Structures are given as C-alpha cells and as structure tokens.
C-alpha cells in the first residue's frame, strides 16, 4: 500500500470525507473478521457434532438402549473434530490479544479442561463399580452435558452474554428432561433439541451480526 513511501511520510495524507468513512467501515469489518470470535462458526460446528453424533448413537443403539458400533466411534470423532475446530478458531482469532477478557478466557480454558477431566473420572468410577445398561447410558451422557451447560452459563455471566446463558440453560434442562425418556430416545432428543439449540444460537448470532 504505502510501502513505496518513506516511513515517516507513508499514510500521512488526509483522506477526504467519504474516504475517511470508508476507512472506518473497512477497519471495523476487518477487526470483526480477524480478531473477534465468530460465534456462528463455533455454534455451527457444535450443531453438526451434536446433531449427527447423537443421531448416530440413536441409529446404532442396541435393544437395551446401549450404544452399538459404529455409533460411539462416529460420535467420538465428531466431538473430537468439533473440539479441534473450536480451539483452532478461537486461538487464531484471539492470538496477540491481551487485557482482562483475555485473562478470563485463559481461566475459562482451564475450567473446560478440569471440568471434563472430572467428568471422565466420575465415568471411570461408575464403570469400576459396575454401572451398565440404560443407567450407564443416562449418566455417561448427563455428566459431561451438565459440565457444558454450567460452563456456558458461567461464561455468559462473566462476559454478559445473554445468548450463551440461554443456550447453557437450555442444555441443562434438555439433558435433565431427556434423561427421563431413557436410552435410546434420549439420544434422539439430544440430536434434535441439543443440536437444534446450537443451530438456533448460530442463526441468532448470524442475524445479530447483520443488524
């Protein structure tokens, strides 16, 4: 752009009024596209992971509702892919950004890791004492989902994000209600209403971005 000019001169000219407005709009847009987390991407990725993943668990579940192959593999691969996509997107957008929000986000990252480590330990302990069948299916689904729900609501409170709070509350109530339906119906409910919840959040973020 101005690289051909001497450093102390480059970009020093005064733009006209219309050009000034265009510069402001362009830089706002650039900042939104480069250093802001695109919630449409994050919620969209999780809408697909939950929608298709839970549908796979439901499709290939056994007679007692226990997940059968390849359901858990499809579900696991989609969840892992969604985690990678989310981390890569957020890391790329927020690299180089500092301040109180960045510090809170770093703590939040730890909270997700610790929360899921705890959920895995609980699952391991329940397996160790012999929990199986439909009860296992309900608990193994509910514990990590409640971790997600509570972290969403906590994060929403920290960042004054009403949409995230509603999504967290929706997931908490959904997983509670779906647990009563038992396996494998709960997988279908999680696919439609859980994946659907993420899709609605993505759509809401999209509409807000165009307002």
């Amino acid at each position, binding site marked *: *752009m*101005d*690289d051909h000019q001497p*450093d*102390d001169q*480059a*970009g*020093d*000219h*005064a*733009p006209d*009024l*219309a*050009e*000034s*407005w265009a*510069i*402001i709009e*362009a*830089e*706002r847009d*650039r*900042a*939104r596209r*480069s*250093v*802001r987390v695109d919630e449409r991407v994050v919620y969209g990725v999780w809408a697909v992971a939950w929608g298709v993943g839970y549908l796979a668990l439901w499709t290939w579940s056994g007679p007692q509702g226990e997940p059968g192959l390849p359901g858990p593999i499809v579900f696991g691969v989609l969840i892992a892919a969604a985690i990678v996509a989310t981390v890569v997107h957020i890391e790329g957008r927020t*690299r*180089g*950004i*500092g*301040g*109180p*929000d*960045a510090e809170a986000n770093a703590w939040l990252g730890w909270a997700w890791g610790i929360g899921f480590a705890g959920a895995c330990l609980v699952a391991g302990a329940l397996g160790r004492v012999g929990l199986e069948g439909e009860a296992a299916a309900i608990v193994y689904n509910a514990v990590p989902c409640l971790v997600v729900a509570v972290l969403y609501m906590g994060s929403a409170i920290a960042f004054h994000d009403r949409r995230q709070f509603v999504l967290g509350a929706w997931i908490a109530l959904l997983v509670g209600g779906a647990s009563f339906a038992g396996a494998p119906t709960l997988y279908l409910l999680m696919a439609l209403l859980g994946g659907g919840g993420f899709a609605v959040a993505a759509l809401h973020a999209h509409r807000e971005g165009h307002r």
Partner: protein
Amino acid sequence: MTDLDPVIHAQARLRVTAFLAALAPGETLTFPRLQKELTMTAGNLSTHLRKLEDAGYVQQTKTIDGRTPATHVSLTDAGRAAFETYTRTLRTLLQGDP
C-alpha cells in the same frame, strides 16, 4: 475538514485508530499482530503509533512474554473518546455534504 482531529485525520492513523477502537475497552493487541492485520511496515506503524501516543490516544506497553519482549498496543480512554468525536463530526460533515 478543519473540525476533524488532525492527529486521527491521516490515512494510516485513522486505520490504526479505527482498528483498535473495534477491540473491547481494556483489550490490547501485540505490535506484530496489529502490523499483520493492517499490512503496514514496522517502521511506518511505529511512526504513526508514536504520533498517536504523543497525543495520549494510544498506549504502548512493553512486556517480557517468557524470554521474548513484546509490545502491547491499546487505545486509551482519551483515544476512544477522540475517535468517537471524530466519527460523530465526520457523520455530521457527510450529512451536510451536497
């Protein structure tokens, strides 16, 4: 035109200010990331940041991240207020423009 803040009203400084104003208050950006986003040379960006800093609109904080020195750039409250005044004045002038 004379009502527009001359510190901000230069192409490069307007770009820097508008970009930094899009960050949340209190947020900072490292110099290399800002340079990459604005596709400006390091010397050019430094020059304009210094002018904005002299006016009290920008703050540059030098830190050590691990063993690497890093410069974090942010818009000050005065800079944010000046940019808001600039955009308000610009909008008024544009509306009055035939």
